[in-house]
């Protein structure tokens, strides 16, 4: 073909060499690197990933805190002895403590002494209280081995005949209520997470399709120059995988940063009333390895979702390309 004498053919060897050298550079990618739709897609993915990761982290936090509440409460039981006529309270406390301490599954007992009891009542009755003047019930805290809890019914049966005014409270009602509340909170959290994830999936799918709409002419040209469908799909899949991962990584990193800042804030303000209140409710704001793993997984899933959507769009476009109406000519 090159030996044809055409007027503008310039075949000087030197110039050819120079030209060949000039074209020895990196070829432009088949799918253009970025356009406005592509940048918007990265931003949308980043925002949705950020929200998803925050929700996931929050749910992890609530779930962990709920399980901590549950365990802390169930680690203890209380023996309460009401003062009755003729009862030697200190002897009764010692006896009840001894009976409870002998049961297998009990790791220790602690009598709440007079001062501690007075302190407990202080918010209601003020300072300078003489506890002996009032019929105040006294408490024994029974610490329980969570893995091997004692038989509370047997313990109750052992204490009550000897000390009729004693009552054993295994916190079952309270624990059950708290567990139910914790489970409800976690369930609501997971429902919110499911909604956020669904919204993320739909947003990513529609944003990817929007970004793909501007690439129809590229698919068409590739198709008409004889590119195989799998080649075209691969090019777009790779491009959108990178785009999706970029956005998702930015969103995930921002969410992790938020958790690190909260964690740092809570540890820095430790022992202040606000921090104590926050810590009592939410633990120390650390989302733990599960949280970080979840964020990482979310980045991968969102990247894969973007790639899969672009793949499906290319396949649909290619199957549609040959049946569209041509321009009249």
């Amino acid at each position, binding site marked *: 073909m090159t030996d044809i004498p055409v007027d503008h053919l310039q075949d000087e060897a030197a110039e050819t060499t120079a030209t060949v050298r000039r074209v020895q550079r990196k070829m*432009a990618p088949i799918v253009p690197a970025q356009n406005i739709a592509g940048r918007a897609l990265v931003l949308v993915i980043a925002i949705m990933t950020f929200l998803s990761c925050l929700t996931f982290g929050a749910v992890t936090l609530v779930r962990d805190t709920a399980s901590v509440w549950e365990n802390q409460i169930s680690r203890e039981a209380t023996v309460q002895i009401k003062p009755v006529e003729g009862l030697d309270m200190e002897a009764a406390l010692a006896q009840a403590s001894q009976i409870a301490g002998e049961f297998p599954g009990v790791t220790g007992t602690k009598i709440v002494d007079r001062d501690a009891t007075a302190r407990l009542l202080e918010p209601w009755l003020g300072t300078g209280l003489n506890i002996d003047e009032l019929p105040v019930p006294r408490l024994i805290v029974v610490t329980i081995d969570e893995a091997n809890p004692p038989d509370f019914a047997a313990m109750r049966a052992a204490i009550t005949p000897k000390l009729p005014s004693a009552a054993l409270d295994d916190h079952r009602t309270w624990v059950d209520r708290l567990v139910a509340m914790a489970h409800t909170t976690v369930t609501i959290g997971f429902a919110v997470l499911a909604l956020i994830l669904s919204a993320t999936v739909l947003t990513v799918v529609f944003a990817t399709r929007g970004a793909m709409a501007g690439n129809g002419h590229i698919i068409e040209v590739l198709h008409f120059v004889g590119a195989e469908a799998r080649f075209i799909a691969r090019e777009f899949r790779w491009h959108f995988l990178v785009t999706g991962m970029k956005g998702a990584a930015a969103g995930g990193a921002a969410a992790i940063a938020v958790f690190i800042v909260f964690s740092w804030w809570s540890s820095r303000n430790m022992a202040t009333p606000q921090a104590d209140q926050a810590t009592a409710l939410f633990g120390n704001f650390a989302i733990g390895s599960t949280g970080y793993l979840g964020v990482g997984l979310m980045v991968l899933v969102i990247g894969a979702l973007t790639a899969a959507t672009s793949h499906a769009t290319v396949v649909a476009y290619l199957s549609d390309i040959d049946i569209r109406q041509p321009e009249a000519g």
Partner: protein
Amino acid sequence: MIRFENVGLRYGMGPEILRDISLHIPERSFQFLSGPSGAGKTTLLRLLFMSLKPTRGLITIFGKDRSRISRGELPLLRRRIGVVFQDFRLLDHMTTYENVALPLRVRGREEANYRTDVTELLKWVGLGDRMHVLPPVLSGGEKQRAAIARALIEQPEILLADEPTGNVDPPLARRLLRLFIELNRLGTAVVIATHDLGLMEQVDARRMILAGGRLDVYD
């Protein structure tokens, strides 16, 4: 090489756009496809390029029945056909060189193996000094030549050109026509869809006239 027998085409339940088209495009032949605007020239080219399926009749392309060609086989057969689109369809984010090299790149060929071929072809069509320019800054004629070079880079057995001189002045149109004639002399069958009578008068070639959905061939 390509044969149509009583081919008809309609879109959906609409009227037939093409009716009882019978033609044969032999190897190394040169022909014009002409007719008024809206007569269906582009549609007929799309049938030749296998981007449309006829609603009736038989099309044989490179010895294969069109109705039996699977989707997977299409890209391989299309590589034997070069197409110059009316609107060029160059990719704006790629240089002239990259656009022309695209058919080779999508086949997975290494750039080092085709660099010289692309460079020489671009010089042959007179774009040696516009190789690293993006299409938006090319003139209509330059875009046209880049599109022609892209269609030729794989040395196709047949070249289909849709109004290749529609956007250029008469002297450039004559140059492009010379280019097509040279290409045909080298062994490529050429079909040029045009309604430019002046262009057709410059060459004594077969004319296929499309009007009212029917095709008349004047050898």
